[in-house]
């Protein structure tokens, strides 16, 4: 049996490209022969995923065999729990169809998040039922946007603190698992826009403070070629722009320099290395775009 896997988490503000980057990294490693499971927990990207991976089997047959996108639907997880607890089919059905059950599941605070986390932990520890998921090499979690992501992680602790009994014990164990840096590779993802950056810094502080988790790298998505250019080239660029009367150049340069400054501030602020992902210029399909981006993510450390 393989050892427990680390969970590679793509987290950050909504709309910064978590789904795209997680699929790109998954595609890259799958094409290199590793078995990859990408866990998605939010509904909208289901469609994004389907669109993005259109043509996978034809264009990247090797990757197609190794890449699994799993949507862990927490309501379905609970239904499964009910079925396992009541082996007699009609009893399980009666519970699942009852008003009591459906209302409680919907309103019990944090319950769905709690079961989602529990399932993710099972998957990481390879306790999930045999044959249900492939025996994988890499486990990626395309997490929901910051607020819901932190809420999901906190649901474990909430169960630990406001309840007693078996659920509280399970909550304590989950809280420990997700506070253990040995189990987690954190990849906060952001664009270099003010709001996204601010949210990313706050999220990183909360993750450090509440869960003692520090980012492995911060991914800077959709940036210009200026962010990662060598210092002397940038100085020359700034001079060129000052001397130039070309509005196109000045506009692009101002923007590029501002982003570069923000990237530097973020590195200093969080004391973390960043990986810049340039906004793509051309792509023939969403899938080809993912492959392009994936090659740029090759240097991200994914294992312990």
């Amino acid at each position, binding site marked *: 049996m393989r050892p427990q896997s680390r969970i590679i988490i793509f987290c950050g503000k909504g709309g910064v490209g978590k789904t795209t980057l997680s699929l790109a990294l998954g595609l890259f490693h799958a094409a290199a022969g590793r078995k990859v499971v990408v866990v998605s927990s939010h509904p*909208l990207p289901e469609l994004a995923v389907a669109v993005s991976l259109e043509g996978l089997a034809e264009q990247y047959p090797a990757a197609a065999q190794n890449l699994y996108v799993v949507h862990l639907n927490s309501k379905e997880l609970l239904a499964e729990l009910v079925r396992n607890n009541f082996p007699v089919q009609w009893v399980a059905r009666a519970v699942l169809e009852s008003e009591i*059950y459906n209302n409680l599941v919907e*309103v019990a605070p944090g319950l769905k998040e709690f079961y989602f986390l529990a399932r993710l932990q099972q998957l990481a520890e390879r306790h999930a039922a045999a044959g249900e998921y492939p025996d994988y090499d890499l486990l990626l979690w395309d997490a929901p946007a910051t607020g819901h992501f932190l809420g999901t992680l906190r649901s474990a602790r909430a169960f630990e603190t*406001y309840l007693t009994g078996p659920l509280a014990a399970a909550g304590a164990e989950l809280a420990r698992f997700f506070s253990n840096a040995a189990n987690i590779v954190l990849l906060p993802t952001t664009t270099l826009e003010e*709001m996204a950056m601010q949210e990313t810094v706050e999220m990183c502080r909360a993750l450090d403070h509440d869960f003692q988790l520090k980012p492995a790298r911060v991914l800077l998505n959709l940036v210009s070629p200026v962010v990662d250019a060598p210092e002397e080239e940038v100085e020359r660029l700034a001079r060129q*722009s000052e001397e130039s009367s*070309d509005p196109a*150049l000045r506009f692009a340069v101002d923007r590029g320099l501002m982003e570069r400054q923000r990237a530097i501030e973020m590195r200093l602020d969080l004391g973390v290395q960043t990986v810049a992902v340039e906004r793509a210029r051309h792509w023939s399909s969403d899938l080809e775009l993912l492959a392009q981006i994936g090659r740029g993510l090759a240097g991200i450390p994914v294992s312990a």
Partner: protein
Amino acid sequence: MKVTVYIGTGGVGKTSVAAATALAQARAGIKSMVLTTDPALRLRTALRLNGGLLEQQVPLDPPSPAELWAGLLDVKATLDEAVRLYGAPKLVDRILNHPIYATIANSLAGMQELMAVERIDQLRKRGFDNLVVDTAPSRHALEFLDKPVFFANLAASHWVKLVGRSYKFVSRTGLGALGRKTVDLYARVESILGANLVRQVLDFYSIFVSIAEGYAERAEKTVALLKDPAVTEFRVVTTPQKAMRDARYFTDAMEARNFPIGALLINRAWQPVPGPESADGLAGRLVDWYSAVREAQYGEIERVRREYGGRVRRIAALPELDRDVDGLEALERIAENLALDRAAQS
């Protein structure tokens, strides 16, 4: 009553576009309020929503012919107000201090939308009948329509009424009072979810039920109102990169609910810049990159117009502003761009 609801995924500039829409209405002589969830600091400052203010008239220079208001869609504050307004006086404190209450107010998925509906109702009664609503990011965008109905069903459910009202009685005398079938199910559900969790929720509902019932009634009315296309217009905000994907998702999702999409606004479209003189080195790479990205964006916008023009009433591209959206000035410019597009269409 006129409600404009903005939906869309995160990071597309929904809040700014919503605020600009309300501003454009105020400038056109219609008293308007924008309700927003969590504006960025600078936008919050521009709208004068600092210092814990729930709502505020926004001073404009030059003044607009009609008032512009901005309101924060704060879940906890809205729920607190509902409890104070509709709760029995002796229960108010017990509810506000119940452990489940805090969790419900802060973490219950979809609470945002439930409270948006509650807030719309509160505002309508105070004479605000032209509202622009900026919904929470994507994951629950459509729950704005779905969730309140659910909650209304929940509060109306015989079971919740029964258990809610009789909980104290039941906790003293056992579940026998509930009837055989209900007890069976109750016991089974309890064995799955854990007795503590279930009892905490029930205990909470036993005191919350009167408010939930009142809420259900109001929510039903408000949702009925919101479901009338003559009252509510849903508009999607997206960006050029996401435009095709979002157009597909939201047109399908809204058509499945029999609701037309009033507008698809493709925000932050990079502007064409006069052809650069040839530049070398990093400058050359940068300008090439900028033009290539811009071209790709316009390709996407054209595709959306071709493929969705027939299913969405209005498709508009809004230009990216020079700097990050900053304050009222940025809102004024977005408002102008919205108006320009509208004029071009009519």
